[in-house]
């Protein structure tokens, strides 16, 4: 699964640390999601969706192999 979390974060002018604090995870978790090393749970994806005020599908996309 690919994501454009980094872009959304830049649009909203958040640092990794700020975003992490807003959704209650570590900065390392945000970094892992951005670099596609970690796929977040539905709860976390919905928290991001609420924060960015966008549907989850706008920044999380399935790949061919998924």
């Amino acid at each position, binding site marked *: 699964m690919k994501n454009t979390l980094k872009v959304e974060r830049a649009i909203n002018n958040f640092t990794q640390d700020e975003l992490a604090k807003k959704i*209650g*995870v570590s900065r*390392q978790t945000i970094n*892992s999601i951005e670099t596609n090393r*970690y796929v977040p749970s539905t709860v976390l994806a919905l928290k991001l969706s609420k924060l960015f005020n966008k549907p989850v599908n706008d920044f999380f996309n399935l790949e061919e192999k998924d």
Partner: protein
Amino acid sequence: MNMKPKIECKQKRGEKFLNFKLPNYFKKIGWFGFAIVFLTLFSTKFFEGDLEILKSILKKTSLVFLLVVVFSKEKVEDEMIERLRAQSYSFAFLGGVLYTLIQPIFNYITFLIFKPEKAVFEDLGDFQILWFMLTVYLMFFYYAKKNN
């Protein structure tokens, strides 16, 4: 009779038990205690006399302190840490089973090659297995945390 609330209550209790973690400061206590016990255990080599009971107590205490480290929360205990914990548990379990099965055979073969007169097939002790599993868990967990 409505059984649903009872089942839910049991499930919640089970989840609470499985998700039990000590506060983050226990990690420091665990490492500190482990270091002291380890050094004491090492220093018993320089003393003479029957210290088997003391050694046995120290070994078990070192396992308890390692367990305290394992059960201590990270500074931010989020879902990724939970996933890393689950991976580390399964890695340690698999490693422990393989170690328990292979190590005695490896020991026996090594002795057969180098000191055949001392070659005796012996299973591993509980301390050795638990020590191995806990250290594998901690090594895997910190390695994965650093590289994730």
